[in-house]
């Protein structure tokens, strides 16, 4: 613990030093770093994307290949790939350009992203649904319906954390449990989060880029309703069949958990505060900003992040320890996400810059893939490419990559509708294709396994998604993304 605190103190000192250094250095610069970085996108070669690709491949493969090494060193691996881009970039393009790139990413994307996740994680970790539910098909389906409906408002992580334990208790007496957890991952940990920027990290990144709060709700409500409706009906049919096959079991023993009840319900009010804070930051335009190393940080965004931290602090203060203990709340998951995403966001800088350069950039091949012969956006390709990469890499950076591939101008994309719909749906829906597509997927798997449910392996899970999700995504392509 003392060692950890020592590291934290050192990091805090380094951060303060870096901040002061940035400020002093930026004062001495006469170059317009923003213009310089825009121009760099056209000059950078594909080789600059290697650290980003390696970072994502490390997340996908190292936990499978060398689990012990990954467990002890994943933070260093993440830092290594960030530096593998930053150090050569500073050498070849100057210290000013490198610091500007870091400041831009930290202040306009990474910090807000982590603060939102931290707030949703902390507040939803203070809500606890206790009591006995009997895992009949109707009850299980109802839990999935509720999870799907709330995921867009408390985040897929929050909704999954709130409901996974009650669901596991409900099905504890059942012989066949895996299908329930798999459908839970499909619906609550992924598809349900498609409707607002709070639902899933990629959509929040879109919001930070300028996509309005209700845009996804307006345009994705129908596709989500169709997809979730089919999945819920299918789950009900499968669970009813298996329930009958098991001989309609009833739980043994007494009712230890008592009546169904929600504890820490006031955290739901704090969640409403999160929604309001994010919403207001999209509507309120005070036209004021702070400039750090030529990066303009708008007042409404600072106010939102501060508000989110305050709400998380209130939740920590007012929620009884007993609720957090019951939820086995801890900081490890958010630390893990924070470390990994620091590496992702930093190593992603050149890929984003090149894609922003469009057909003049080194990744013009990708741009050509998502265009029709007439030069229009190919929605089907956007949906499937964003989706395919979201499944194997993380869906948040994938969304950003394709958002920029499509031009990166939110007003144009919102007006054109089809492309942004395809990117948003591809990133969120297909995050369900693998365990690593979206953070709550492996959180749910980990909780299910610790509760004694033998979850399928990485490839075993993919068989489920190949059999169930892929045919549905083909259907969605015909209905909405062509």
């Amino acid at each position, binding site marked *: *613990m*003392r060692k*950890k*605190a020592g590291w*934290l*103190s050192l990091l805090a000192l380094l951060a303060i030093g870096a901040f002061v250094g940035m400020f002093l250095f930026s004062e001495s610069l006469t170059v317009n770093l923003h213009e310089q970085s825009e121009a760099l996108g056209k000059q950078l070669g594909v080789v600059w994307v290697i650290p980003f690709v390696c970072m994502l491949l490390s*997340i996908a493969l190292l*936990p*499978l290949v060398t*689990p*012990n090494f*990954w*467990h002890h060193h*994943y933070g260093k691996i993440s830092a290594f790939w960030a530096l593998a881009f930053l150090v050569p970039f500073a050498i070849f393009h100057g210290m000013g350009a490198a610091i500007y790139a870091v400041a831009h990413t930290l202040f306009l994307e990474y910090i807000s992203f982590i603060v939102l996740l931290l707030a949703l994680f902390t507040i939803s970790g203070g809500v606890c649904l206790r009591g006995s539910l009997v895992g009949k098909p109707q009850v299980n389906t109802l839990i999935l319906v509720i999870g799907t409906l709330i995921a867009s408002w408390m985040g897929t992580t929050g909704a999954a954390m709130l409901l996974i334990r009650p669901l596991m208790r409900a099905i504890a007496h059942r012989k066949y449990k895996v299908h329930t957890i798999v459908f839970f991952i499909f619906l609550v940990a992924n598809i349900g989060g498609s409707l607002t920027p709070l639902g899933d990290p990629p959509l929040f990144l879109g919001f930070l880029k300028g996509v309005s709060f209700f845009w996804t709700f307006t345009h994705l409500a129908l596709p989500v309703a169709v997809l979730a409706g089919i999945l819920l009906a299918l789950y009900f049919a499968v669970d009813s069949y298996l329930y009958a096959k098991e001989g309609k079991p009833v739980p043994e023993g007494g009712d230890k958990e008592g009546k169904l009840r929600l504890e820490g319900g006031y955290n739901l009010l704090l969640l409403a505060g999160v929604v309001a804070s994010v919403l207001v930051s999209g509507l309120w335009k005070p036209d004021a900003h702070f400039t750090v190393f030529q990066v303009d940080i708008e007042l409404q965004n600072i106010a939102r992040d501060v508000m989110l931290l305050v709400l998380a602090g209130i939740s920590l203060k007012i929620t009884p*320890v*007993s609720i*957090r*203990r019951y939820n*086995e*709340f*801890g*900081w*490890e*998951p958010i630390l*893990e996400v924070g470390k*990994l995403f620091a590496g992702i966001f930093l190593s992603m800088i050149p890929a984003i810059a090149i894609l922003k350069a469009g057909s003049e950039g080194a990744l013009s091949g990708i741009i050509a893939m998502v265009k029709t012969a007439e030069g229009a956006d190919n929605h089907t390709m956007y949906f499937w490419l964003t989706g395919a990469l979201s499944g194997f890499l993380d869906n948040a950076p994938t969304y950003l990559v394709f958002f920029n591939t499509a031009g990166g101008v939110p007003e144009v994309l919102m007006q054109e509708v089809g492309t942004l719909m395809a990117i948003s749906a591809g990133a969120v829906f297909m995050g369900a294709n693998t*365990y*690593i597509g979206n*953070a709550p997927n*492996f*959180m749910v*798997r*980990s909780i299910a*396994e610790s509760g004694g449910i033998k*979850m399928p*392996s*990485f490839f075993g899970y993919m068989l489920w998604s190949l059999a169930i999700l892929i045919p549905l995504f083909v259907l969605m392509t015909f209905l909405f993304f062509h």
Partner: protein
Amino acid sequence: MLQINTVLMPVDGSQFSKEAVRYGAQLVSAHKPKVYLLHVTEPVHMTLGGANAEQVRQANEAKSMAMLETYKEILAPSGLDVTLLTRSGRPDYVILNVEEELACDLIVIGSRGLSVLESMVMGSVVTRVLEGAGCPVLVTRNVRSQ
């Protein structure tokens, strides 16, 4: 009469916890309680699952058990009935959950003290155990050499 049948001793490998265990054992040995030595390990990261997570979990558990054995040796002269426990998670919550689960009569825990910065950043496991425990907690600090 005072009943001390079950004593929980959370340890972390530090000299402070070794002193706490030694001191606590001498204090309660007259009651002949059952002693549970608990070590809390870091949870397995989320990106690991299935057989891979199990592999890391087993490695952590083996390391933890080896460390607990050294504490068991410290307790050997007292002749107490000692059980070794290893769990993963957030230390204060795990300690309190185990205390509840085993219906402990006493928790003995060593305190190393925190700097102002450490307290601000992380708080103290000992403080949170004191706040949440359902039984008396003995916190030892600066134990004089016996």
